[in-house]
């Protein structure tokens, strides 16, 4: 449980930042371009899609199901693991909100930032009804 939570904690950061190509010469991208993954649009699109749907979604479900199972069983055997898993999941939320805050600051209160501020408010007030539909 702790292991999958840690893996999720690291993997959820993958969709939050860009990627650099380390060997751009092999694909015919010259050194004059900035070697970001934006240079290959379909690969970037595929990468984020696969990471979200084939990797993060099942991992997230696994972590939550584990925590819920242990909570429902009512046993205190693995309380340290239980605590650590919930702590990691909550810390993941903290990182999400941090990133969203940085995003709003960078956008300087535009329309997109208003939406993210609403999301943060709903996160803090635990009113996630409309954000559960994915």
């Amino acid at each position, binding site marked *: 449980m702790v292991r999958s939570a840690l893996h999720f904690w690291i993997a959820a950061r993958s969709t939050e930042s860009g990627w650099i190509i380390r060997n751009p010469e092999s694909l015919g991208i010259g050194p004059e371009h900035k070697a970001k993954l934006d240079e290959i649009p379909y690969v970037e699109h595929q990468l984020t899609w696969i990471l979200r749907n084939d990797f993060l979604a099942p991992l997230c479900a696994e972590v939550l199901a584990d925590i819920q199972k242990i909570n429902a069983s009512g046993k205190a055997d693995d309380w340290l693991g239980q605590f650590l898993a919930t702590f990691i*999941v909550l810390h993941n939320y903290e990182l999400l909100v941090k990133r969203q805050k940085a995003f709003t600051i960078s956008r300087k209160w535009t329309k997109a930032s208003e939406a993210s501020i609403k999301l943060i408010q709903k996160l803090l007030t635990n009113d996630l009804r409309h954000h559960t539909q994915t």
Partner: protein
Amino acid sequence: MNNREATSPAPKATKQFSVCQYKILKAAAQILGVGVTTLAKLLPKISDAYSLQDFEKLDAAADILGVSIGSEPEAVVASRHTPPEKPELPVQKFLPTNGSNVLHIPSSSIISTSSLSKVSGAVQVPDAPLKVLDPATRSSLSANAELNSLLEQGSFDGMCMYMLSCLFVLTYIDPFNISELDPTIEALTNGFEPGTATEDQWGNWQITSKTSHLKPHELHPVDNGRNDRETAPDPDVFDVSFFPGGSEDAFLQSGWGKYSNIELGNHNDMDLLMSTEMGQMSHLPSHETSQVMDDFSNTWNADVCSGNTEVLLADSTPWLAQPNVATQRIINLPEEQIGHTHIPSTLGITSSHTRDEQLSQTASSHLAKVGDIIPLPSKEYAPMKITYLPQQSFVNKIKKSQGTASKRSKVARQKKLKGPYLDDHLRQQTGNTRTNHACIRCQAQKMRESTPYPLHVTLFTNRDHLQCIPNPDDPTGICLRCIKQATKTIKAPCLRLMLSHCVLYRTNTTQAHLQVPPQYSNSDPKGASNFPHQQLELENLKYGQVFTFAVQQYPLSEQERSLSPLTPEGNLLTRRPYHIPNTHEFVDSYKSCIVADAAKCADRLLTGSNTLIWKIFARAFKLADANDGLKVYSSIQSIL
């Protein structure tokens, strides 16, 4: 030591612990900041339940908290009884006083309560905490001042520390299992059992006892004016009549008890259970239901059919004109079992047909509608017979609910699959409930179909298709049933969320790259081609994960090839037509990169955070994995 034993009389609640149990007790006491005797009085269970593994866990927790647990030699521990401390046990402070009636919950003394109420926002925290009896231990807590400052900031760290302390309290002090104790402690535990939890506008919870002066209707919108809180207990929740046999034990001893073993989340079993006659019996009085249940459980055991079943999927259901998947179930049974149906007479169902006749009837009625039936390659089976379509089960169900008794046999009882709703209104209701989710009360009490489950089965399974009657003014707010219950004692608020509904990562479904048009928007590889595979090595900008995977060119169409690269259509997508041919390889390589670069990633993610969080993550890495985790653990320790 010996002199002290001889002179001082033995304390009241003396209990001999073994060495490791005493170690655990002392460690827990030191972490909680409570004296050993107070903890020993609160822990009658420790002699059986806990072992050395718990001590290791406590050691880990103490390491996180910055408390040192010294292990003592055996001779000292064996000669040492519970040390005579001051008898002032501040338990009475937790008793519900006459004025406020707010339930006091014991929390560890290392957390200042005034800051807790800010931080948690969930439970009202007692005014008087457990007093630290030994000032030396309190001074030895290095994390004490740090913790208090954290909690007063109301930061995330403080919330986590609160959780940690609550875990200690909950695991080592179980208020529901304390017996053979002083009357004061019994009075303390009595305060836990009844009580109402109310939630105000801002999500703060208040737990009040039954004789509270805080009226629930002040917090909830509707009050009918009746004051039946004290006279009439809530008949719906946790009542004895909730279990049809009269009590829970009788319920479990009868044949129905086997459904309590259903695995959580196994929806097929639950649906099977609901599609049987169980749901129809809720209108009978209790003594009749128990009789019926006994009969039914006997027949149920005889009904278990060992035949080979196979399910075929067809494309459409013409008689419903809906694009749902229709299934045909082909059942092969040995002929000895056929015709031995026994159905209890109390249900009012008589089996006039044998199974063979029914098989032929249902088969003839539905053969022409579905079309061709694929013959199975039967080896040693008897000739296959089509028994029913799943929609037929639903028709039977509706007929029965309308009053026309349909003839049901053993075959009908085995139906697992649910058909679509024939009634449009019902279908719409179900759709609404699936989007808004049913609240906990309606899930537990089964608004639409009342079936006798144990509560723990119903609470933690997804049963969103149950109807939760929404408030017409605010469909996502408090449901009508919960508003009605607001005048009575409330066990659970109207909450529609479960833990598994949480979304822990970014899920925006828009296109990931601006130049990828919507017709490209699936992630499938673009088909096989003869281009060679090339290795692409990526590095994350922020966190420095490095991983490689195969990339291949895909063939462009002539139209795409003819586009000049300067036009907006002929963008990078047509100039560099690369795709990921093998998604499994990609996922595998990413998994390995996560394990390999965990130390680097954790280092970058945790920079700037508190040392407590560093310690917790170090322990988590140590607990998670033997090899890689230890590497991360050592690297974090070196940083600290």
